[in-house]
């Protein structure tokens, strides 16, 4: 067994300018450190099959949220009235991050033999009427995203999927903190970002999804 532990650093390998492929590779590399790189693809698929598809459901749930956020910031950057300065810069960064999450989750789901959900229709009401109203809804989405991933985390079966979800949730938390800073709110609503139930998250997201 100890022979399989000789490359622990692979699990934390640094990938500059991480692409969608690199994101998938992070999990694959971690597994590859144990089983040898050539076996990684089939191995991941097999692990997922054993996991009973729960991870795929979680990934698709996350993908839905990321679609929502990606669309939100894409529209916000284009059409928020009076969006300037730090808020505009942050909105642009967040848009880029969310779109990368969408790509990565889509690719991961496919890679694991699943079918990615489609982007939902969205409706953000008057959120883009002003910078303030945009930031207010942004805070809701980011805090929601943090709670969603934190709630799903312990249910994830595959270590590589957990690693990916952890990597994304930290970015969502970073977004949430900075949006709150811009709004003059306490940067964390609590010292502990409690996980939310999937249903709570879906209920909170529902008003912004067009049937």
């Amino acid at each position: 067994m100890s022979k399989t532990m000789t490359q622990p650093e692979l699990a934390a390998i640094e990938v500059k300018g991480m692409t969608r492929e690199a994101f998938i590779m992070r999990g694959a590399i971690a597994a590859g450190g144990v089983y040898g790189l050539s076996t990684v693809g089939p191995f991941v698929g097999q692990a997922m099959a054993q996991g009973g598809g729960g991870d795929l459901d979680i990934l698709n749930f996350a993908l839905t949220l990321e679609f929502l956020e990606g669309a939100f910031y894409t529209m916000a950057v284009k059409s928020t009235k009076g969006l300037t300065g730090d808020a505009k810069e942050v909105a642009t960064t967040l848009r880029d991050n969310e779109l990368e999450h969408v790509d990565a989750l889509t690719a991961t789901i496919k890679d694991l033999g699943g079918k990615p959900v489609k982007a939902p229709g969205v409706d953000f009401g008057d959120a883009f009427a002003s910078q303030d109203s945009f930031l207010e809804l942004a805070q809701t989405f980011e805090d929601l995203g943090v709670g969603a991933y934190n709630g799903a985390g312990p249910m994830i079966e595959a270590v590589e999927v957990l690693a990916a979800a952890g990597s994304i949730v930290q970015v969502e938390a970073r977004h949430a903190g900075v949006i709150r800073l811009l709004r003059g709110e306490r940067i964390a609503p609590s010292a502990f970002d409690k996980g939310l139930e999937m249903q709570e998250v879906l209920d909170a997201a529902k008003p912004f999804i067009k049937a």
Partner: protein
Amino acid sequence: MSKTRTREQGDGDVAALDQLAREDAGSRAQFLKMVGGAGAAGALAIFVAACGGDDEEEEPSGGGSSDSGSSGGGKASKGDIAIVNYALTLEHLESAFYQQVLESGEIKDPKIGEVAKSISEDEMMHVEALTATVEQLGGKPAKAPQTAFDDVIAGGPQMILETAASVENLGAAAYLGQAGNIKNKEILAAALSIHSNEGRHAAVLNEAVGKSIVPDGAFAKPATMEEVLKAVKPFIKA
């Protein structure tokens, strides 16, 4: 099979520590010193014991279907306790830092001061919660290490904020680095709830010092225990 994979992959840090522990007495002593303080050394001892005992843990061999290491709701392994103590050591360090910063009165900007105060409160809560968790699990909580932040604080607000940003980014990466190693679901949930809180701190402090709020891009990178302990070494008194 998935259980095996989970364990082996999760043992990266354990392997690194194990290796350190097995090396000559000199480097082991050096490592203990690096970790700092009897509490942390105790945590290491537990950790090493956990490594040695790795094979003792029962594999749910054969029949039992996907019981992949996460269903053990109530029971915590020694490895989990060690991870919580590792996190506790970091939280002690952070908490002490902000308390010293706030006492120093070096932060004059009221907005930044408010942020520092709220982060300080969060870190204290983390210390309390992790201490209680270790006790609840029947372990011995790591003691607060002796810290060495005098030079940082004497360096003024910019150095304080840059150090705070470094420590928070490191803390977030440290939690992320352990997520896959935690066996117990409740402990994982607790760790995740703190991990994202550290992520909030990290981004806000990065913003305050003019760094990217997402220095790793859209996907945050983890750090191993070895990397983290090495990075915090300058702030722990030998």
